[in-house]
């Protein structure tokens, strides 16, 4: 089986040379035969070593392939200088395994094939690192103990320690040295003085670097190993990471360890560290190895995200009961519309974010955000509920929030994106449960007027008291919101700047805004807050207050447009029911109930009973129908049907009765026409209320009702022709002109 191994040497060798300047010993150009005493830097040492904590997350992406794929990577192990505190393997479509190859540790992933979207691998580890200083023993070269492994003195392909040129150079450099420390210093100084090689010309094997007097960082490290070995000092290459907070890296660095006085001492000719290592050097492996190996011809990419964490953060995590499942993905498939919960918990989260949305989130978006969060060690919880009806959306969002209370209450950032202001109402649930978010930031995006946002936002702010409440208007894609929030919260970009980058217009509400409201509005905010605290959901107040608006719409439909309906206010109540079931299901339920009702009502005719008794029987029939629809809903998993009881039974019975009387008096055609009109007016009211966001406008500005009443009075006094009368009598205008 031809399973080639591609060596990622070129990638890995791209180490940093920029930090060479501020090295401990000033590397001076080596002059043949001169001996420089190693610096006595013991006095300059800090008394206490620095201790740092880091999290490194490696993310790999493998492109889909039909053939077997395998990847393996070297990971750090604990030694005296560094301690690996935790490793996390995120579950994936691959089989994970660990292979110990002392002193190194491999981890690998295998799969017979890779499907699209399934090629992501993530592995992270948390380490504690310290800085170290050694003194090279002041002993004779010959007194240096033998190596643990004779291989460490042998030449290799790129460390040609037996090459005559190397031998000559070592002989020249050590001509005057007798002690181990002198020899070591001389060799180190020589290797450290070389220039960094550029581009493709960069040499990366010992002889080439020697001849060119310049080379790649790893080439220079190899040269130093070759020089040590040629001088009979056991030496090896070390691969590692230079840790920098918030950095995303693809390259490792290489330094050298030499066996001196029975210990491995570090030498970094590129970074200029002589027998010392700073705390941000993380050892990944020993030897001349690539960090990652994978099957040939595999579309592969990876990067490593580095974060510095605090000891407190780690301790707080350790205090929590250890969870074996690092990543929980839960997807509940309720009804035809979906309620989804996705959660990605970072092992050592620096922040936690809860995203709440009322539309199904595209897997790609979840993937993007989750990957982003993973790299930054952010726990992310997605809650989404998608329903047509705003009433259900609010309800299911509230239910979602209630069932994920812990996550929501502890989130540093709550991102809510809904079609309309449903998100705001859903969050008020927190107020109902008297949850204070204190320093969390709330970002709520939705299509609502800014003035409404200001009032409802103030209620929310009063109740929940977040650190900051940001309203984004109109609704923005989840991804841009995330990017904005991440840039602002995690990278510290000012909100306005982050928002303008993603084309968003945030409206920040804080304590000053709440205080700054006009007297009446402030009282209103206080009143609504009190209502929420008294467990009266604002939606209930909403429905009460929006009723007069619907009634006004019905008046407009009748007196200005001229659409006749069954009863004056049947459309008011029915459209209120539509607000809860949503239009599609509302119309369906209406048609089913009226259709079946009319059939049953004609059967009642045969019974010959009086109107009141007949209506009562009809109510019984309608109730049975509604119960039936509920059961059918439960069977078929249709959510809207489960809540069919919202439909006003008495009103529906009246519509059925009206239908039948109209049928008798004015004919079936007329009855159907009136039913159609009633339905159309209900739908139009529904669309006006929903589309115009009237519910929240009335809630925020109840004085609108004065306007509504004024409008109703004006219409009541208006004597002009109704719009449809122009159509109905259009012949009159023409006939008169013709002089008929």
């Amino acid at each position: 089986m031809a399973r080639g191994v591609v060596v990622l040497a070129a990638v890995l060798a791209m180490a940093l040379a920029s930090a060479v300047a501020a090295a401990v010993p000033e590397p001076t150009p080596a002059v043949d035969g001169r001996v420089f005493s190693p610096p006595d830097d013991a006095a300059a040492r800090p008394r206490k070593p620095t201790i740092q904590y880091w999290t490194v997350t490696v993310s790999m992406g493998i492109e889909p392939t039909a053939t077997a794929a395998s990847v393996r990577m070297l990971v750090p192990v604990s030694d005296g200088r560094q301690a690996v505190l935790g490793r996390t393997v995120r579950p994936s479509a691959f089989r994970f395994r660990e292979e110990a190859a002392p002193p190194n540790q491999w981890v690998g992933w295998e799969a017979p094939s890779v499907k699209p979207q399934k090629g992501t691998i993530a592995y992270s580890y948390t380490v504690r690192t310290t800085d170290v200083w050694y003194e090279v023993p002041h002993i004779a070269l010959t007194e240096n103990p033998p190596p643990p492994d004779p291989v460490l003195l042998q030449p290799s392909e790129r460390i040609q320690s037996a090459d005559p040129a190397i031998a000559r150079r070592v002989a020249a450099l050590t001509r005057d040295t007798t002690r181990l420390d002198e020899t070591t210093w001389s060799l180190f100084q020589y290797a450290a003085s070389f220039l960094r090689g550029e581009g493709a010309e960069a040499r990366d094997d010992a002889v080439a670097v020697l001849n060119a007097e310049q080379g790649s960082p790893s080439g220079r490290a190899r040269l130093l190993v070759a020089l040590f070995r040629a001088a009979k000092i056991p030496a090896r290459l070390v691969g590692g990471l230079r840790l920098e907070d918030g950095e995303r890296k693809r390259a490792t660095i290489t330094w050298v360890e030499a066996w001196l006085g029975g210990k491995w001492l570090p030498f970094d000719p590129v970074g200029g560290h002589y027998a010392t290592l700073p705390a941000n050097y993380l050892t990944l492996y020993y030897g001349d190895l690539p960090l990652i190996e994978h099957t040939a011809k595999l579309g592969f990419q990876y990067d490593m995200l580095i974060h510095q964490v605090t000891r407190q953060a780690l301790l707080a995590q350790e205090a929590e009961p250890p969870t074996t499942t690092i990543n929980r993905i839960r997807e509940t498939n309720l009804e035809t519309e979906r309620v989804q919960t996705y959660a990605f918990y970072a092992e050592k989260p620096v922040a936690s974010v809860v995203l709440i949305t009322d539309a199904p989130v595209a897997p790609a978006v979840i993937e993007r955000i989750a990957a982003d969060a993973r790299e930054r060690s952010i726990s992310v919880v997605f809650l989404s509920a998608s329903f047509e009806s705003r009433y259900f959306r609010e309800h299911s969002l509230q239910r979602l929030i209630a069932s994920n209370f812990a996550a929501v209450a502890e989130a540093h950032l709550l991102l809510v994106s809904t079609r309309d202001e449903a998100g705001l109402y859903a969050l008020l649930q927190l107020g109902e449960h008297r949850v204070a978010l204190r320093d969390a930031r709330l970002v709520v995006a939705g299509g609502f007027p800014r003035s409404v946002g200001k009032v409802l936002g103030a209620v929310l702010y009063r109740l929940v008291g977040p650190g900051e409440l940001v309203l984004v208007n109109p609704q923005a894609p989840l991804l841009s919101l995330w990017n904005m929030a991440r840039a602002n919260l995690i990278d510290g970009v000012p909100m306005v700047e982050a928002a303008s980058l993603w084309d968003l217009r945030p409206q920040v509400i804080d304590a000053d805004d709440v205080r700054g409201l006009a007297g009446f509005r402030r009282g209103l905010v206080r009143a609504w807050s009190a209502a929420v605290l008294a467990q009266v959901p604002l939606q209930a107040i909403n429905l009460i207050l929006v009723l007069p608006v619907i009634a006004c719409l019905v008046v407009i439909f009748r007196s200005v447009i001229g659409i006749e309906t069954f009863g004056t206010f049947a459309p008011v109540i029915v459209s209120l029911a539509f607000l809860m079931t949503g239009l599609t299901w509302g119309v369906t339920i209406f048609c089913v109930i009226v259709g079946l009702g009319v059939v049953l009502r004609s059967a009642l005719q045969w019974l010959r009973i009086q109107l009141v008794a007949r209506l009562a029987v009809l109510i019984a029939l309608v109730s049975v129908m509604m119960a039936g629809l509920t059961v059918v809903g439960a069977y078929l998993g249709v959510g809207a049907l489960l809540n069919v009881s919202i439909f006003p039974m008495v009103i529906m019975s009246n519509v059925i009765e009206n239908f039948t009387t109209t049928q008798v008096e004015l004919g079936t055609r007329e009855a159907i026409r009136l039913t159609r009109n009633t339905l159309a007016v209900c739908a139009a009211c529904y669309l006006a209320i929903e589309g115009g966001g009237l519910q929240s406008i009335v809630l925020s500005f109840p004085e609108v009702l004065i306007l509504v009443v004024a409008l109703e009075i004006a219409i009541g006094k208006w004597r002009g022709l109704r719009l449809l009368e122009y159509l109905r009598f259009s012949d009159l205008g023409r006939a008169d002109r013709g002089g008929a």
Partner: protein
Amino acid sequence: MLAALRRLRRTTLGMNRRNLEFLVPYNPRSLFAVVDHKPCTKRQLAAVGIPVPATYAELGRQWDLRRLDAILAPRSSFVVKPARGAGGGGVVVIAARAGDRFVKASGATISRAQLAAHCGDILGGAYASSTYGDEILIEQRVEVDPVLGAISYRGVPDVRVLVFRGVPVQAMARLPTRASDGRANLHMGGMAVGIDLVRGVTTHGILRGRPSARHPDLDRPVAGLAVPQWERLLTIAAQCYDAVPLGYLGVDLVVDAVRGALVLELNARPGLTIQLANRRGLRTSMEALASADLVGATLDDRLELARRLAAVA
């Protein structure tokens, strides 16, 4: 186009104006009870000598149905109506007897028991729009006059005269069609034909809100027919205002082949389709009448005024 709209707005009476300017100020609610109950209407009209179909019986309770046989025994043709019915619902027209059974106007027969059951339905409020139950009115069957009968499909055509403050304003004939099931009900597809108030001649036909020159089932032209006893019809219509002082009143009349003009019922909320059938808006003449001084005007004065207004084209 705009000129037509403006003219339309100026001359046509719409629902809003009808309600605000004519229904509310001129029709006291107390009189609605009179016109919504047919026997009551008939009594009031008969009191001032307005001819109405002869009443055979009024039955108000299920108990009264015992007497049904006795009442119907001397009659071979009659009409059973709900007292509070509207639009002709629940009306059964018996044209003849065939042995033990009754023959309906449509030709179908109905047994005595079925008729009694129907009467029970009426009493139960099956055709009433109020919750008070209903009563039965059994009255004379109208023999259709051949002139309007010729353009009616199986049923009784009637003449609607719109009377404002006792002055006839517009009139139309309502013809039954197959779609309206023998009823002169425009919503069900009955045909409306305007009548020239001065000459008593039919003008334009309207079917389901659209102009139509011919009867849809009989395929005869509906225009140009002289309505029999036109002067009398007009006089009776104007007289109704004296019996039931509703300012804005719709009077439904029939021409009986034997008894001549009879008032069938009154309507306190007459509709506006009459404008279409006459190809003429109501607003101008109604507003002229509203401001006219009618104090002390006699019946003849009012009829004279009606002719004068109608003549102004």
